[in-house]
């Protein structure tokens, strides 16, 4: 039973680790949410890699070094594949994660460095549902998100 949990945990950790890394990429951030992208590349990357290492630790504990290594490598591939498919078809599932990331950013972090890229896509953009259909899942206890900037994140948001 513990082994099953560790295996599931390892897969989940790989998936989340890759999700954090995907959030550092402008394209995926825009697929997931309209919010301004906080400038936290380093934190996200460290968190992402940390989770991947944690994933290895879990399979190492449950299955030992040789099975663990195989499980880890294949699990990474499968998790990344799953994440890519999530981003392609159900990007909104990752919105809570993106919001946790942007809300836990230090004050002003988001404002300090607006994404230098082009403004968010129009609502009818491919790959994202219209804004009306979105249900923003907020983590419990988090302050309600302000009105989303309709346009390119202005500096004084």
């Amino acid at each position, binding site marked *: 039973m513990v082994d099953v949990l560790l295996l599931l945990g390892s897969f989940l950790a790989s998936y989340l680790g890759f999700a954090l890394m995907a959030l550092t990429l402008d394209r995926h951030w825009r697929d997931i949410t309209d919010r301004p992208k906080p400038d936290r590349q380093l934190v996200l990357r460290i968190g992402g890699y940390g989770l991947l290492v944690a994933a290895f630790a879990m399979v190492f504990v449950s299955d030992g070094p040789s099975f663990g290594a195989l499980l880890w490598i294949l699990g990474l*591939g*499968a998790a990344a594949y799953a994440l890519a498919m999530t981003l*392609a078809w159900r990007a909104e599932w990752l919105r809570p994660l993106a919001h946790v990331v942007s809300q836990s950013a230090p004050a002003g972090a988001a404002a300090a460095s607006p994404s230098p890229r082009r403004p968010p896509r129009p609502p009818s953009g491919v790959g994202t549902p219209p804004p009306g259909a979105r249900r923003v899942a907020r983590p419990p206890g988090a302050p309600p998100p302000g009105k989303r900037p309709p346009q390119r994140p202005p500096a004084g948001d």
Partner: protein
Amino acid sequence: MKRSFRLSMAWLHTWAGVVIGSLLFIIFWMGSLSVFDREIDRWMMPDTRFHAPETIQLDGIADDITALAPGSPQWGITLPTERAPMGRIFYQDTSGTFQRKYANLETGTFIPDQGTRAGTGFLYPFHYSLHIRWKGVGYWLVGLAALAMMALLVTGVIIHSRIFIDFFTFRPKKKLPRSTLDLHNLSGVLFLPFHFMIAFSGLVIFMNIYFPQGPNLAYGDTDVPRSEFFADIYGRYSRDKAEAPGPEDTASLDAMLAQSEAAWDDTPASFVRVWHPGDANSYFEVRRSGARTVHYPRQVFYYDLASGDIINEYSDSSPAVHTQRFLSGMHFILYDHWVLRWFYFVAGIAGCVLIATGFVYWMETRRKKHEKMGLKGVRIVHGLTIGSVTGILVATLAFFVINRLLPLNTEFLGLSRAALEIAVFYLVWVATFAHAFFRPSRAWLEQTWVIAGLSVLAFVLNGLTTGDHLFRSISEGLWAVAGMDLMLLFSAVVAALMARRLQKKQTSEPVPIKQAAAAPSPAPRVPKPEVAHG
């Protein structure tokens, strides 16, 4: 310099892919199926669908085998496992030909011949030998493909400049060449370590075929380098016949088996064999199974059959042998680990996706240009691709369907039942090539529908002909049968979705506006082959 390097790598990637891609797809497809070869066996051999016995009885069946094979110089049994619950017996008949028989080792009864080579006998050898026996050409072709796979992976990474930016990128709604390339990159990059290792370990497994001179170098100072080499790495032991009858009462095979397993920390044995049955020098061989470790162990006990004493013992311990066994064990996946087994299957199918999307991208980017230039080659590549991608899936499913249609003991035109199944496989496969060549614009779509149809048919036939429909197989815990049925249904759904997508493309945009002036052949393309095994 850098630019030209990348260009030359792109050239290598493209042409190695086009030339060897069909072969690679076949090997990956058969390899993915081989991950579940024993489950396919259960599905195709209904009389072997039972639970592995808790205890087995060798002494009883030994007498039956001796009666069955008088004078056979040896006989052996591959012992039951969870995945293959019957004992697989082999012996030599009076003419010296090897015969095979299955038995339930709990009850000690033989199982009637199932008339099929199924997964382990047909699909799995297809994976490593392509069933080309002539001068071992099949092995060399597979080796070449493995080498090409490694070269393709390396060159693919080199030419894929945006590897980290595109790491998770898949844009299914973009135009076809783009979404295909996304899927190609994704499948290639994410499973790169696995695909590289599987190609490499595949080569290592056949080191004796690819480097036959190795033993001669290392054992050159002995009289028989090759057998010395094999004695060292496989612990091969032999004792000549005494040419005198052995004692009436021999040591108990079950006791010797139990003693061996106890010596291996209760790891089960995989195989037992009696040499020179009935002779005074008769001896008994017990091999350890690889159920518990990634590396495939070679540990053997030899017992004197008259006394029951150990006369020889082998355990691989040298680092080189251990490395080879780790790599081959990783490839063979003979250990018990369901999660890993499924991961292997997924990664194998990802390899199929990788190869198929590579083909589709190649055709998409060149078809119009080449048609304008009047080149005939594109049509050939197109036909070959369809035949080796969807075609082999159709043929595999036809193999499953015919297995459920032919009654046991069928013979036709002098062909046994097993041979008939294989004949159907090849006939259908050839037909898919012909279909692809003569109906290039419809072949993808039509063959995808055929895949969906055959999957459903195989599923239904299993329920009708064996009574082990999905509810029963699940309630009785026959997971091999249930899993196979579920995968058939899954592949039917995926194929149907894919076919509908292709159909929409074909009807809604018969002629892309931009290229209306160019050759208006609206060949539909599969963005992704059927992600399922039949």
